[in-house]
């Protein structure tokens, strides 16, 4: 089982992000996803920087994948996407249909990201024809749904693409045209002052009775819980999961990666280091108790 470092969902200062990846390249990871997936205004690392970083990190022998924006609205954002694809040395993580189409037109292999809405084997087969080589199911697809889909793939006589499952981190739940971080600061989006940079793990949102609930991350909303599928390793193996995706958090990622490196080598599952993922069990995503 391989380990991947998912794309950085938050907005970190340039030096922090570069230092993070230059450390991460020495961790026991097999795949590193780079690039901005949330907001095109975040330019501490520009498109050229991400591409340069991809080239630099690729020398380690790890697979580097360039991830695309989940929500594309502007022509300039399409331009960035074209640059990533035409860079040519890396696979693309396609996080919307624009990326799928541009990869398809240019015959560039791609990873189907978790916001792509692939719910059945027939859709997956079509995307495989388009160049999909690896699939990351959406957050609401847990063990039973993935197993059903895998069984349907087999029954249809098809091969599964590589299967990558979100194993650690806050779950991306929704995207909007609106920036909620700017809204929380009573700023218009076009003059947001890049306030996301002050929240390296997102901006906490709690209910009125004080229960932590969600994280605001610019135009994206994440769940509060840092989910951990480490205890589910037997089920992950049964499903034939090829890759465990670990989403970067602000602190302690080296330890998280080391933990999952031990976990994948262990027959017995290791104790949890994060929250239970309700979705994995076919329940509301935020349900912590089984």
């Amino acid at each position, binding site marked *: 089982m391989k380990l991947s470092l998912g794309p950085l969902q938050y907005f970190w200062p340039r030096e922090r992000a570069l230092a993070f990846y230059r450390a991460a390249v020495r961790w026991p990871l097999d795949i590193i996803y780079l690039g901005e997936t949330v907001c095109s205004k975040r330019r501490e690392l520009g498109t050229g920087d991400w591409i340069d970083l991809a080239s630099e990190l690729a020398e380690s022998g790890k697979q580097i994948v360039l991830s695309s924006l989940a929500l*594309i*609205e502007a022509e300039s954002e399409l331009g960035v996407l074209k640059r990533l694809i035409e860079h040519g040395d890396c696979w693309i993580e396609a996080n919307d*249909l624009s990326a799928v189409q541009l990869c398809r037109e240019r015959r560039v292999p791609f990873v189907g990201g978790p916001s792509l*809405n692939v*719910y059945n084997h027939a859709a997956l087969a079509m995307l495989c024809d388009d160049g999909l080589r690896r699939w990351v199911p959406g957050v609401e697809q847990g063990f039973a749904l993935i197993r059903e889909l895998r069984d349907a793939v087999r029954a249809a006589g098809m091969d599964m693409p590589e299967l990558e499952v979100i194993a650690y981190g806050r779950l991306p739940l929704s995207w909007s*045209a609106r920036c909620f971080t700017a809204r929380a600061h009573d700023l218009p*989006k076009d003059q947001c002052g890049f306030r996301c940079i002050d929240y390296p793990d997102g901006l906490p949102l709690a209910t009125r009775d004080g229960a932590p609930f969600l994280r605001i991350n610019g135009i994206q909303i994440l769940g509060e819980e840092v989910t951990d599928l480490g205890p589910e390793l037997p089920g992950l193996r049964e499903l034939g999961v090829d890759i465990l995706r670990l989403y970067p958090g602000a602190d302690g990622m080296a330890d998280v990666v080391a933990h999952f490196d031990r976990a994948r080598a262990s027959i017995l599952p290791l104790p949890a280091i994060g929250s239970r993922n309700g979705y994995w069990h076919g329940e509301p995503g935020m349900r912590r108790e089984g």
Partner: protein
Amino acid sequence: MQLVCPAGNLPALQAAIDAGADAVYAGLRDQTNARAFPGLNFSDDELRAGIAYAHARGRKVYLALNTYPDSVRLAQWFAAVDKAASFGCDAIIAAEMAVLDYAVRTHPRLPRHLSVQGSATTAPALRYMHERFGIARAVLPRVLAIAQVERLCESAPVPLEVFAFGSLCIMVEGRCQLSSYVTGASPNRHGVCSPAKFVRWHESADGHRSVHLNEVLIDEYEPEEAAGYPTVCKGRFDVRGEIFHALEEPTSLNTLELLPRLAQAGVAALKIEGRQRGVAYVGSVTRTWRAAIDTYYAAEARAWSVQAAWQKTLAAHAEGHQTTLGPYHRHWH
């Protein structure tokens, strides 16, 4: 520019047609559409009757099949496509690739519209759906500013339909798991957002009310305060020590003042949201937009303006009696 109106049941369909809708959209009584609410939608006989009613008056009926089936449930969605074809629906509105693929292979002459749930916001995304499934039209997610809609009208391979009025999903449609995170029931898989069976109201002796969605406190209200339906995106929460509508206020989209720009951009159809709403809403909102559109096309160039009576009627039917230009207006973002 066509006016496409919601029909949650047969009386609403008839009200929309009578009030001047060019087309109505409807769903079957199951999870194949994104308004799978109890007591809503059409039996087979009702759908046949609705189609007959519309066709007798030269109007169209589109069937919404815009949820995302898992592999084991595909047959149910395929059967719904068959039904749309055999009943004589004028188009299906679908989002999911396997459903669209089945439709184009099995009923190539049944037009396919890409649903808003398909989350296509760019020319390449629309190209994909057009090349792959021959879509005849696409409904845009409520994320683009008016200038972006205008540009997309030029570059899109198919005519576009946009939301004109109704409840405002503030998240990209087809990309929101807030309901499923809290309740396990999702718009994509189950055709529902924040289903009523998870809603729990509590009123204190002093008149204060609180509302939970599956044990998550969505909002609290003063005794005289108006309360909306508790979706996560329209609750009040604590962010940075302040309690406010952190995601969006209870308000409705209203693009009436943009009508000339949408028409000049070449938008093919204006969509009214609200299959969950009653006959009074459907009739009144449809009649107002019919009048606005007809007046626009009858007017000399640039002589059209929004009439106060129209806005008053629409505001009366809006969530919290508030309306917004929403994402069409850059300041909303």
